């Protein structure tokens, strides 16, 4: 059956230079004395070390576990002793350092005990498969390094097609090419496991037509399988996930969306082989095939490299560097980035190490102003307007850049490749993206600070008002207390007055008195009257005396 292929807009045909590294078969790299394993070799959270300095580890032993959902475990890539867990330079465009586990190898390269699972993958539960893939540290080996087990979780979506990406569209790189040529059965085996995990209806393997040998090997290996190997016309950047999906199925993955949304999962061929090794052989991911190439390398080839091997160690195995080497690039010439040192280790996403000579790298002085010729827009596979974006990035008009869909840019480098003025357009986009991220972080921080500040203000306000309320209450209570007293006094006085005025203010117990009581009262009254009489007579005597005394005094 001949499948109808589709096409995406744009794309370029850079010279391939793949043949220079495919003359020899894949050979294992010699073991380096020291392996430096970064905890962060993938997209997502860094792994957490589970070993300590001084521990002896075997190859395949887990030395750092995945931390969180989007993360991947790290395994010792050879036997030896952990000598350090510290910051070391890692492959990063900015030359950053990050925590690495350093192993001094003992040269024995002893594996941890491993073997195929007791049950066949077909009997295994999907979650069991995913768990093994997760704990084997498998990430996308095409270059992005996204943890593979996540992509094998269709979360309820119906997966129509599993695509294995053997396009390898970047010049120079041939690691997937060689893998497909030499180990097609591993790829097929991995594909079958992933199909099982995803319940995918069909499996397609895409290979560009500049790799006829790889295509032939896969076709040969698929003879008895329900897997279709498709030869696609060579066009950079066809290896981009969304571009490949468009070519094979005509479907467009929405901006910001995932292939799962259109019922497709794409995995790299090398990832498939790694899945096979993990499930069928019980071997975690400890090495990968790396292309060592470029005009600056004497004997370009493909090596099977344990992770953590310093790049210099590999370059030395390929005849060393020529004198006019201008820079060492990790990845392809289109999307790779320059290493600031050759001591940097190979990680899971290192598909190639290229040594570029002076002649390969355009000096920055050749950069001319943009003449808005639009050649970049013609080749952009995402149909952006690269030169407009470049103007916005230069002018720091980041809002406009986002309005022109800066974040849809896949940084494939087609625009820079065709630019007649040699403008490094992608650098401008990376710059703008980083700035926007920084601004967003800054804004988040500012928002956070503002919220905190506002909270503080409101707290102070609240405390103030609470204090005021408390005070007011106290005062009110105090006032209330004094007025209560007066009121009580007044009330008492009023009661007394009322009692005085009221006709019934006689003692109440005057009625129904007994004889004896009446006698008693009478006698008491008599006595009171007598006493009154006495008192009055005495008062009168005293008055007379006083009056006589006064008269006497006046006389004198």
């Amino acid at each position: 059956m001949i499948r109808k292929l589709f096409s995406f807009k744009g794309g370029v045909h850079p010279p391939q230079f793949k043949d220079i590294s495919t003359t020899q078969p894949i050979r294992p790299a010699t073991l380096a004395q020291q392996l430096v394993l970064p905890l962060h070799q993938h997209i997502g959270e860094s792994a957490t070390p589970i070993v300590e300095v001084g521990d002896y580890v075997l190859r395949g032993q887990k030395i750092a576990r995945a931390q969180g959902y989007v993360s991947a475990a790290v395994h010792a890539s050879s036997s030896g002793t952990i000598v350090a867990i510290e910051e070391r330079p890692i492959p990063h465009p900015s030359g950053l350092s990050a925590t690495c586990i350093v192993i001094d190898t003992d040269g024995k390269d002893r594996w941890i005990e491993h073997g195929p699972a007791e049950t066949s993958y077909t009997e295994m539960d999907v979650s069991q498969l995913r768990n093994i893939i997760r704990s084997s540290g498998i990430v996308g080996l095409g270059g992005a390094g996204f943890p593979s087990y996540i992509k094998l979780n269709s979360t309820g979506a119906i997966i129509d097609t599993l695509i294995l990406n053997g396009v390898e569209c970047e010049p120079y790189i041939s690691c997937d090419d060689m893998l497909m040529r030499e180990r097609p059965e591993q790829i097929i085996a991995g594909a079958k496991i992933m199909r099982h995990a995803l319940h995918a209806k069909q499996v397609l393997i895409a290979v560009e037509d500049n790799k006829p040998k790889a295509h032939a090997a896969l076709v040969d290996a698929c003879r008895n399988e329900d897997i279709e190997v498709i030869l696609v016309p060579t066009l950079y950047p066809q290896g981009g996930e969304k571009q490949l999906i468009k070519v094979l199925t005509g479907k467009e993955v929405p901006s910001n969306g995932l292939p799962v949304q259109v019922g497709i999962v794409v995995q790299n061929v090398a990832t498939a082989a790694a899945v096979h090794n993990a499930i069928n052989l019980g071997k975690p991911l400890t090495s990968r095939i790396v292309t060592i190439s470029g005009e600056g390398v004497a004997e370009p080839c493909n090596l099977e490299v344990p992770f953590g091997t310093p790049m210099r160690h590999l370059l030395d195995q390929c005849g060393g560097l020529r004198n006019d080497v201008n820079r060492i690039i990790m990845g392809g010439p289109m999307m790779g980035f320059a290493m600031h040192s050759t001591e940097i280790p190979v990680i899971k996403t290192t598909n190639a190490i290229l040594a570029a000579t002076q002649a390969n790298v355009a000096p920055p002085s050749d950069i001319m102003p943009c003449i808005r010729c639009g050649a970049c827009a013609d080749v952009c596979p995402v149909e952006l307007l690269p030169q407009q974006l470049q103007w916005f990035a230069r002018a720091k008009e980041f809002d406009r850049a986002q309005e022109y869909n800066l974040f849809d840019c896949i940084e494939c480098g087609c625009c820079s490749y065709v630019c007649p003025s040699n403008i490094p357009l992608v650098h401008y986009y990376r710059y703008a993206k980083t700035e926007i991220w920084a601004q967003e972080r800054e804004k988040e921080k500012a928002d956070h600070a503002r919220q905190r500040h506002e909270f503080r203000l409101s707290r102070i306000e609240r405390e103030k008002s609470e204090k005021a309320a408390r005070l007011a209450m106290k005062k009110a209570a105090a006032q209330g207390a004094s007025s209560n007293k007066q009121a009580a006094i007044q009330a008492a006085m009023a009661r007394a007055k009322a009692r005085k005025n009221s006709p019934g203010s006689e003692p109440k117990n005057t009625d129904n008195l007994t004889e004896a009581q009446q006698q008693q009262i009478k006698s008491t009254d008599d006595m009171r009257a007598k006493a009154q009489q006495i008192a009055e007579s005495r008062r009168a005597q005293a008055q007379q005396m006083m009056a006589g005394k006064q008269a006497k005094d006046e006389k004198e």
Partner: protein
Amino acid sequence: MLRVAYALIPGMLIYSWLFGWGVIINVLLATVAALATEALMLRLRQRPIRMYLTDGSALVTALLLGLAIPPLAPWWMVLIGTAFAIIFAKHLYGGLGFNPFNPAMIGYVMLLISFPREMTSWPAPLSLSEIQLNLGESLTYVFAGILPADVRLDALTMATPLDVLRTELGLNKVMEKITASPIFGAMGGTGWEWINIAFLGGGLWLMYKKIISWHVPTAMLGSLALISLAFYFIDPTAYTSPLFHLLSGGAILGAFFIATDPVSGATTPKGRVWFGIGVGVLTYIIRAWGGYPDAVAFSVLLMNMAAPTIDHYTRPRVFGHGGK
């Protein structure tokens, strides 16, 4: 840019074969003036001189302007026009890549407005004139304004076909009578048609080499042809044929060499089509009803102004953003 210059050569040769040495003198004068001014400006702006001088942009400006100025124009006119184009239209805006207007057309329009008489008197083409100045005579006339003793100025120059058409139509003459004049050839103006065909050849070569895209030339010539065809059908006595419009004046030169200037034009594919249509329609409008006989320069400049807006409204759909 250098290939743009190569593509101009056939048209330039035929032009000078038909109209004499004046064409070559113009082009050379403009080139010298442009390169000198460019170097001066680069020096003043402290930019690397060699790199920018060899990019060919000043050369192309000079060639276009030299071709647009009437042959045998006084030397100082060419110099002023070119220097104005390079200094004001290009470097004061920031140099290569930053100029909103086509520098050659700014130079041309400045001269046309400042020296209307000189800028509209063209030598008669070879087949219509007994007199053809030789190199020495041409140089003497350009630099000193002195004609050979036996040549009178009015015998040497004549109005261009587009100019004649405008004047005669203004006098209410019928098209048939006007075009019967020997100044009108089989397809366009006598002589002009061949020059334009040579430019067309150069332009098609540029397109074939993918130096220019098909959008602007096709849209401009297409819209010019369609609109002139429409009016030709309505009243052939008052409006000339589409072929005449395409092969007269600067239509072809403008379509392939001037309106395609990427710096001052629209850059999105759809935008380029609209830009071309705009230039074509404006050219017809100014030619048919405007105050100037030819209109490519004005149309291009007017559309230059609209280019950013056109770009804004013709952004292509981005991959994965709705639609099909």
